[in-house]
């Protein structure tokens, strides 16, 4: 992305490892991205790809005795990884706020919605109870919670999933944060409610001029809201591009896998959904070379040894990919896949020998 000084959030070479009994789980292994004011970055990947860890680390919520963090997180130029606990506390919920996946478990079951919102307000503002409650009601109205003046006294379990997530969003917005991180905000919701919540997040982002990081395992969710998308795999960003570009000309075989494994209206009639074979790799002993090679239908022998860096795609500097296949081969493969070919068909059409690495 463009000029670093202007970025609201700049993450540089972030590495996060968790010490476990089996070894160090390297949840993030050199992740860099930047986000400008008012823009939305979508982060997509399977569970365990490190997307939530990235978000929690920005919030300072992965700190712990068994966590090893390296790199830089700059919020408006302020380094957060080295910040004191008190400074981080002051920023959390104030400058950076977070919406979590499951609002039922993320809201405290013992306290009323209004009390939980007021608490968020009073954590950062010196206002009395009545003022905090007025603000809470204002927030619930802002997120279009129906009958907010009554629901303010409801307990989380008395609300529907969609209403709970609205309350959760209201709580995150309590102090008008500069950056809102939404970690799978729609995953726990019904499909119809999902669209409403996404629309709400987009509207609020525009109304309040926030930057947003939208995390999802679902490219479709991110597509509607994000200006730019980062695809994560095994603790790294493997492809990053403006949203339009990512859907028009995806470069990484993993991104292809994500696209062809979900139903699309613009896919050719009769095209089969192709699952990505295998499982996400161990982050204690990640695969050698390209981390995706054990699951990649197009892997070559050298891909088992050479670890590809994230580099700009020739001709489109806004798009970056970490893949060892030549650009023209990638183009040929994706054209076939987009036309409904299976990975095997695409491979032979592009002139690659079958499974040489296997």
């Amino acid at each position, binding site marked *: 992305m463009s000029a670093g000084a202007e970025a609201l959030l700049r993450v540089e070479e972030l590495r996060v490892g968790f010490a476990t009994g089996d070894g160090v789980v390297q949840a993030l292994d050199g992740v860099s991205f930047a986000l400008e004011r008012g823009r939305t970055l979508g982060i997509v990947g399977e569970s365990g790809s490190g997307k939530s860890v990235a978000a929690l680390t920005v*919030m300072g*919520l992965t700190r712990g*005795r068994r966590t090893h963090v390296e790199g830089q997180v700059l919020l408006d130029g302020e380094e957060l990884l080295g910040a004191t*606990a008190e400074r981080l*506390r*002051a*920023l*959390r*919920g*104030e400058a950076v*706020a*977070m919406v*979590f996946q*499951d609002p039922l*478990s*993320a*809201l*405290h*079951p*013992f306290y009323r919605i209004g009390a939980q919102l007021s*608490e*968020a307000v009073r*954590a*950062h503002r010196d206002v009395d109870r009545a003022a905090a409650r007025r603000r809470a009601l204002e927030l619930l109205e802002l997120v279009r919670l129906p009958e907010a003046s009554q629901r303010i006294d409801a*307990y989380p*379990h*008395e609300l529907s999933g969609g209403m709970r997530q609205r309350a*959760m969003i209201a*709580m*995150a917005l*309590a102090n008008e944060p500069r950056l809102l991180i939404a970690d799978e905000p729609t995953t726990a919701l019904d499909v119809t409610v999902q669209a409403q919540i996404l629309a709400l997040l987009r509207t609020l982002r525009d109304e309040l001029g926030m930057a947003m990081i939208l995390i999802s395992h679902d490219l479709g969710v991110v597509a509607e809201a994000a200006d730019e998308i980062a695809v994560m795999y095994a603790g790294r960003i493997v492809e990053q591009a403006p949203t339009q570009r990512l859907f028009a000309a995806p470069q990484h075989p993993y991104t292809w896998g994500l696209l062809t494994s979900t139903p699309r209206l613009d896919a050719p009639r009769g095209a089969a959904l192709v699952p990505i074979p295998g499982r996400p790799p161990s982050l204690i002993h990640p695969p050698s070379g390209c981390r995706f090679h054990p699951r990649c239908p197009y892997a070559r022998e050298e891909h088992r040894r050479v670890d590809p860096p994230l580099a700009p795609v020739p001709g489109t500097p806004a798009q970056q990919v970490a893949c060892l296949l030549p650009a023209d081969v990638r183009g040929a493969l994706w054209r076939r896949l987009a036309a409904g070919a299976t990975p095997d068909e695409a491979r032979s059409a592009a002139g690659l020998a079958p499974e040489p690495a296997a």
Partner: protein
Amino acid sequence: MLGYVVRRLLWGLLLLLLVSALTFVIFYVLPSADPAQLRAGRSGSLATLAAIRHNLGLDRPLTVQYWTFLKRLVLHGDLGYSYYSDASVRSLLFDRIGPTVSLALGAVVVWLLVSIPIGMISAVRPRSWLDRLTMGGALLALSLPVYWVGLVALYLFSDDIGKWPLLPGAGSYVPLAQSPWEWFTSLIMPWLVLASTYAAIYARLLRGNLIETLSEDYVRTARAKGLSERRVILRHGLPPAAGPLMTLAGLDLGLLLGGAVLTETIFGIPGIGRLNYEAIVHADYPVIQGTVLLAAMFVIVANIAVDIGYAYLDPRVRTA
């Protein structure tokens, strides 16, 4: 809520009826000492025995005996008279309840005051040296039987036989109304000894619960809101973790109010536990029945109190 409490109380009464029937059956059906024989002494003739049996109503059919007992209890609150001392069971219980309540309530306060801070510190800093030290100490306290700890405490600190005569020893119990200070000092050792095992159990339980709740999503949310760590733990982590502790405390208190036999015996405290023990030794059925019913009542009431407390703590219980 009120209807719920009334329903629970009615069930409690039914339960007490069952307990009384069970005590009755166990005492008479299972072999035990013959109360008439004990009363008549070694030299009692058959005629004396028969006369005693008749006086105590032991010669009537069991169902009639039980019915008479129930009728007197329900109509007059009368639990009958001790076979052994001829005193009314009710007055015996009244005499003994004060020491037991003093012992039990004080011990509960001590073990909660000790275990809650320890459990919290250990949970917040798991694997720290403080955690290891306190949990090791808890394991020790848990493993030592109360009669042994009690005797050691007396041997070390009692003012008659102790190496360091600091505190009043066995048999020094003084009612609160008589002298609050002496009441307090005489109970310090019993409280600490009785509380030690419980404090250990509670500290370990709270530690485990709190470690679990501190990893809950809603605690992460509390942190993400920018709350102070103190508030995160005290307001968001502790209440859910304390729920099971409250359940246990209610039950343990109920049980202890029914008499802490070992502690009362070691420290010579004239409580319900001692009364029950003596009644068993003397095959004094009316007193046994009285102490058992009293203990059952405490447990039932404690259970109801715990359930009400839960509803107060967790709104989800209220609607369920």
